[in-house]
């Protein structure tokens, strides 16, 4: 009570900075219902405008060609019917009534959507008719994604997606103010890391928002002293705040995806536009595209027009897929932060995903035959919480590096598997492009060519630094890494053919995802030996691994 009151700006700011994660129920941004599904409103407006077209044409004709004033439309559109019959007033009332009802519904949806962050869980309550209450335990969080589609981004809001290790979906905090979303992500990660003190660390860096109304006058995260600009006198202050708002929106729109409030992590890779477009064009979609175009032109040329019905939609689909791949890979950045690997991408609609430490279950590095000329590789991972039918969003979450050189891939593997990075580094080049026993891996014996004629020379498997490396594939080169601390079980199988050849195949089971860790063929004795070593080391590593509680180290 008697302590001198510090300058007003940081004190209430620190209060707001902790506020969202204080275990109380909070509401989301008021515009959320509109952003989440307010297309209904736009559809209503669209219908009205379409019906007004004759009226609009009339008005414009009168303006630009006054001597055509007597021109009357042929009628038949509802608007002119309504006007002619004098029902205009009722029409306006009806439309106004519908809009009011919609606004009422939106307001109700906004009121019913609340969320709460406690020390143990993230909880979301929403729904008007069918209320749902979803909660996610903090120590089961597998990743956090801050995404900004185009329209919400213009309005300065963002969506926070918390993915958990289950298959029934994520906890979504849809639409929060952009700054608050980033801050909240940092706080959730801090709490999930096991560190009890949420107020230490960069998350509580003074955000100079005093209260919500002034939040719009908020600022760059380089906190220059805000006291001067925070005390607006009303008249000039309003204009000043408006200009600050515009410049803040412009900043957010143009800002790169890695937000700057943590000590800015340097992105480990840089994907140039040429590489992104080139890699998409030179992939499977391009081959399909060429085939589809060829088929369509042949069909049209030989007058078989049914081709248009079957292949034009396919063409549209392929082009759409290629387009989305390219736009999702623009401005790609991957960086390591104390709270995990942060992956940002996107140009107009951005997304920023954080994978906390200890959540990567398997890594696959692959290269198709066409990319071999350019030396490009792609990295995919398994994280818990991917449903079997991967929709576009979920599939994006498992793609860490859409295209990169071997050096980029080595850096990304260092980020994804930091505990074994030191042991893996010297072996990686041999593991990517080597054959057989290169890099200290156990090769497949020559007699395996009866089972795998093309890839037998490339198959190799080994246990290095607590990670299992499996190299396989001839047409599409593959290297799979499974950290043993995350492996669920190991399986060895052999059918009658392989038993004859004294071979076995092995598989390491991890959580469901695009990466399958499979050793296609290996000598039976080597297999038995590797099986025992993997089983015992997996137990050891699982017992000593604490990377999922990284804050308590």
């Amino acid at each position, binding site marked *: 009570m008697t302590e001198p009151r510090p300058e007003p700006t940081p004190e209430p700011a620190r209060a707001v900075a902790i506020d969202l994660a204080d275990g109380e129920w909070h509401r989301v941004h008021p515009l959320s219902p509109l952003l989440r599904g307010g297309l209904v409103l736009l559809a209503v407006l669209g219908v009205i405008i379409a019906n007004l077209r004759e009226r609009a044409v009339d008005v414009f004709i009168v303006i630009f060609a006054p001597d055509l004033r007597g021109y009357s439309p042929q009628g038949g559109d509802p608007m002119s019917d309504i006007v002619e019959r004098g029902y205009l007033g009722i029409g306006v009332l009806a439309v106004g009534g519908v809009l009011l009802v919609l606004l009422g519904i939106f307001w109700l949806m906004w009121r019913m959507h609340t969320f709460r962050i406690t020390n143990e869980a993230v909880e979301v309550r929403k729904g008007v008719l069918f209320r749902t209450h979803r909660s996610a335990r903090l*120590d*089961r969080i597998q990743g956090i994604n801050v995404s900004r589609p185009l329209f919400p981004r213009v309005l300065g809001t963002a969506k926070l997606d918390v993915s958990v*290790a289950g298959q029934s979906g994520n906890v979504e905090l849809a639409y929060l103010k952009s700054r608050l979303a980033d801050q909240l992500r940092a706080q959730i990660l801090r709490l999930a890391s096991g560190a009890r003190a949420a107020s230490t660390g960069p998350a509580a860096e003074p955000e100079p928002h005093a209260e919500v109304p002034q939040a719009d006058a908020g600022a760059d995260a380089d906190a220059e002293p805000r006291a001067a600009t925070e005390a607006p006198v009303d008249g000039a202050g309003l204009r000043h705040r408006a200009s600050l708002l515009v410049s803040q929106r412009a900043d957010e729109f143009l800002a790169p995806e890695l937000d700057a409030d943590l000590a800015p992590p340097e992105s480990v890779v840089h994907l140039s536009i040429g590489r992104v477009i080139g890699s998409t064009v030179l992939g499977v979609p391009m081959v399909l595209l060429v085939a589809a175009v060829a088929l369509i032109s042949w069909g049209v040329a030989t007058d078989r027009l049914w081709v248009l019905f079957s292949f034009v939609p396919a063409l549209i689909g392929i082009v759409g897929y290629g387009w989305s791949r390219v736009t999702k890979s623009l401005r790609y950045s991957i960086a390591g932060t104390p709270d995990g690997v942060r992956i940002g991408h996107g140009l107009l609609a951005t997304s920023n995903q954080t994978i906390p430490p*200890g959540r990567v279950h398997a890594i696959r590095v692959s290269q198709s035959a066409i990319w071999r000329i350019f030396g490009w590789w792609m990295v995919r991972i398994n994280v*818990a919480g991917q449903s079997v039918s991967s929709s576009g969003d979920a599939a994006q979450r498992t793609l860490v590096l859409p295209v990169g050189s071997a050096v980029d891939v080595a850096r990304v593997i260092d980020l994804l598997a930091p505990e074994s990075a030191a042991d893996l580094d010297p072996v990686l080049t041999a593991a990517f492009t080597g054959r057989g026993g290169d890099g200290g891996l156990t090769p497949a014996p020559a007699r395996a060519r009866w089972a795998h004629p093309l890839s037998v020379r490339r198959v190799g498997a080994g246990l290095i630094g607590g990670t299992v490396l499996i190299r396989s594939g001839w047409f599409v080169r593959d290297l799979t890494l499974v950290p043993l*601390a*995350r492996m*669920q*079980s*190991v*399986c*060895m*199988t*052999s*059918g*009658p053919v392989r*038993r004859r050849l004294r071979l076995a195949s092995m*598989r390491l*089971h*991890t*959580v*469901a995802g695009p990466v399958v860790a499979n050793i296609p063929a290996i000598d039976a004795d080597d297999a038995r030996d590797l*099986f025992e070593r*993997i*089983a*015992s080391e*997996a*137990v050891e590593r*699982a*017992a000593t*691994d604490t990377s*999922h*509680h990284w804050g308590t180290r």
Partner: protein
Amino acid sequence: MSDPNELDDAWRRVSPKYIMVEVIGSLISMVIFAGAAFVVYFVFSQMWALWVGIAIVVISVVSIAFEPRRVRSIRYRLRADDLVYRRGIMFFREVAVPYGRMQLVDINRGPVARALGLAELKFVTAAAATGVTLPGLADADAEALRDELVVLAESRRAGL
């Protein structure tokens, strides 16, 4: 003293009565499918249905003949830190699962198994492909094994 489930690190088998469960299951499905095929043949006079029916009968008889050996090949072993399970004669499969990876233990009893006093224990991890199912355990053994696995898993709990 002769607790069948103590950790003596030896290969344990499942009860031979499980052969009966499998045989009855195969017989029932053979009767249904071959019956449908023969009905099609006799009523609608489709020649191919006869061959399909005969093929189904032959395959079922052969697999029933191999059933005893197959059931005898199902073994499991409780080691110090993991559970090892193997099965199969032609298509051999061996799986090692650390105790700490256990998410659930399920005990299921089908109608025939219940009549014979057997149960099936399923060890569920976070990977659906693990698929460790121990069929044909006596009821009491299944319950005891489940309790023991739960205790072992708790003592070795690891993160996901």
